[in-house]
């Protein structure tokens, strides 16, 4: 593999990892607050549709992004009502959200655009424009640094950089602010938080809403950045890969970045090469596709370090009287 191909693969890794990163951080924040969310996939899909549809209608990608965030937050709140207010099963609620998104996006897309459940392709300002980082052109021909800065880091849509920025922000929010401390406490020991006079329900709704915003951004980047328009089921399991990355990262933001880069790299490599030879052994493309899931099972099984979720995750909080 020569250097130019490596640069290309890493460049596409960065792009492919972006929706995973948003969704992974979304799940991380929700689960840190004790609300399991297997509906990341559905929220991302609904966001992808709204972003593409509204960007097409308005001609402005950012209005589309706002709409994506809006619809994703609404779906998050449905999840919140079911799992926080009515103390329903969080996993079942997540499954419902996934199906709701899978069905309703196609029904509405067909109704609005009559193109077989997709949006028209986006062009110009309806898509996320690539941003050239400062001095990218100037540094282009510098050896090593040039290809890395110009070839890999520069020239992505704004959301790629927002995603990268979200990692330290999430870390800071969770581990350096009062809100984050409370949020984590709600996921570990809600009764203690309640005793301190803080609303467990309020904290959990807050976390679920943030999760919605991030999933909306994931979906928006998917349909306006990675591709140019919405097609049926375009999230294609990315919400579950994000879930896998979250477990792989053991619910820690910086590790999440590493995990999504790894999974993004696998996707980039699988996209570029049909069959890869490693040490004379042909690795089929399906193995590359399955690898994130296999790695997650291995981590969950505790063969390579143990993934321990927040203690109160998955159960609704019932106040003692």
């Amino acid at each position, binding site marked *: 593999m020569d250097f130019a191909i490596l640069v290309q693969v890493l460049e596409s890794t960065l792009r492919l990892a972006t929706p995973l990163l948003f969704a992974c951080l979304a799940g991380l924040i929700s689960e840190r607050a004790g609300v399991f969310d297997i509906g990341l996939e559905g929220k991302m899909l609904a966001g992808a549709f709204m972003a593409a549809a509204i960007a097409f209608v308005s001609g402005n990608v950012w209005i589309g992004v706002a709409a994506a965030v809006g619809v994703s937050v609404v779906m998050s709140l449905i999840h919140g009502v079911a799992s926080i207010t009515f103390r*329903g099963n969080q996993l079942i*609620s997540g499954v419902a959200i996934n*199906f709701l998104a899978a069905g309703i996006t196609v*029904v509405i897309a067909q109704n609005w655009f009559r193109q077989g459940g997709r949006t028209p392709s986006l062009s110009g300002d309806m898509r996320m424009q690539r941003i050239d980082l400062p001095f990218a052109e100037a540094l282009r021909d510098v050896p090593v640094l040039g290809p890395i800065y110009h070839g890999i880091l520069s020239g992505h849509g704004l959301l790629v950089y927002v995603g990268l920025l979200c990692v330290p922000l999430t870390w800071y929010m969770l581990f350096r602010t009062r809100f984050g401390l409370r949020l984590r406490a709600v996921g570990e020991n809600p009764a203690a938080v309640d005793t301190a006079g803080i609303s467990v329900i309020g904290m959990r709704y807050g976390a679920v809403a943030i999760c919605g915003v991030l999933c909306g951004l994931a979906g928006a980047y998917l349909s306006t950045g990675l591709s140019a328009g919405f097609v049926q089921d375009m999230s294609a399991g990315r919400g579950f890969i994000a*879930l896998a990355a979250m477990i792989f990262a053991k619910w820690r933001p910086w590790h999440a970045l590493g995990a999504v880069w790894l999974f993004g790299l696998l996707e980039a490599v699988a996209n570029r090469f049909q069959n890869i030879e490693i040490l004379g052994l042909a690795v089929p493309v*399906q193995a590359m596709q399955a690898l994130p899931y296999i790695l997650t099972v291995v981590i*969950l099984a505790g063969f390579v370090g143990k993934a321990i979720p927040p203690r109160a995750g998955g159960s609704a909080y019932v106040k003692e009287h």
Partner: protein
Amino acid sequence: MSAARRIPHWADVTLVPLTSVVLAFLLSAVLIWAIGESPWQAVKLMVEGAFGSSYGWGYTLYYATNFIFTGLAVAVAFQARLFNIGGEGQALLGGLGVALVCLYIPWPHWSLALIAATLGAALFGAAWALIPGYLQARRGSHIVITTIMFNFIAASLLGYVLVNVLRPQGSQDPSSPRFPPEAHLPSLHDMLAVVGIPFSRVPPTNISLFIAVAMCFAVWFMLWRTRLGYQIRAFGESEPAAEYAGISPARITIYVMLISGALAGLMAVNSVMGEQQRLVLNAVEGAGFIGIAVALMGRNHPFGVFLAAILFGFLYQGGAELALWTSIPRELIVVIQALVILFTGALDNMVRMPIARLFALRGAR
């Protein structure tokens, strides 16, 4: 849940799920109305399409057969309070089991092929569920996550096997060759013709419908008439109590997942052997997930699963007709399915509380 106790049992098994379904249907009607179609017209089309002819009935029952298997699979796991989302992957592997049995062994008669294919499907499905079951039982890995992951791994595995192993030489299509004619199952048309009842020849309804009904009885018997079933239900009610009574949680978890996976795998006898007659990439078409809705609606009871499977069979066949005659796409059914899962599963308390309040009022009077 204090509210739950105030509802009489009969209302708990009929009124609560029915209210949920009505709510789901009402919201779907609003959606149909919002996209500019008439909900009433849609219902009429669906009912006519699904029940108006033996053709419609055939397809309804064919889909229902799939959903009985996957619904039972989810229901058995739910009885032990295990959420098996892996029905999709287990059914895919079941399909592989069926295909290997039908392709590589020359069967003299369909009845022998059916027995072997049933065993193959159950074995492969169970094996695919065994790993998450084992990991849950022995390593504490969350079964929901591992079964989701196994769905994706199953899809990749099947893709590999179809493209690199089973695909006939020179074929572009990632699918296995057709099964030999000796492995063709008798259709409902053939079987009813013996007793002189005319039935449409077109739908793929076949003998596995009766296997599905038999499985409903078998699961009921297992759950309520055997020691294992008692242990499963006790484990589902309270894990510490069951453990105190000498029931091994690990053993029950693994047994339940084996049974659940086998049931999901059996679906392939109906779809792969009964309809497609070869193994294709997308052999399950989401039926594994519909099992979740079916089990929730059927209150995890085999009879409830049977009824809910017929309802979803109706929705699938009716939805196909709807897509044919109106501008409403088939995906509307996925929305209805989502709403059923939402109301019967996640928003159960929302439906339950007002009903409980009604009964409390009546009791006070």
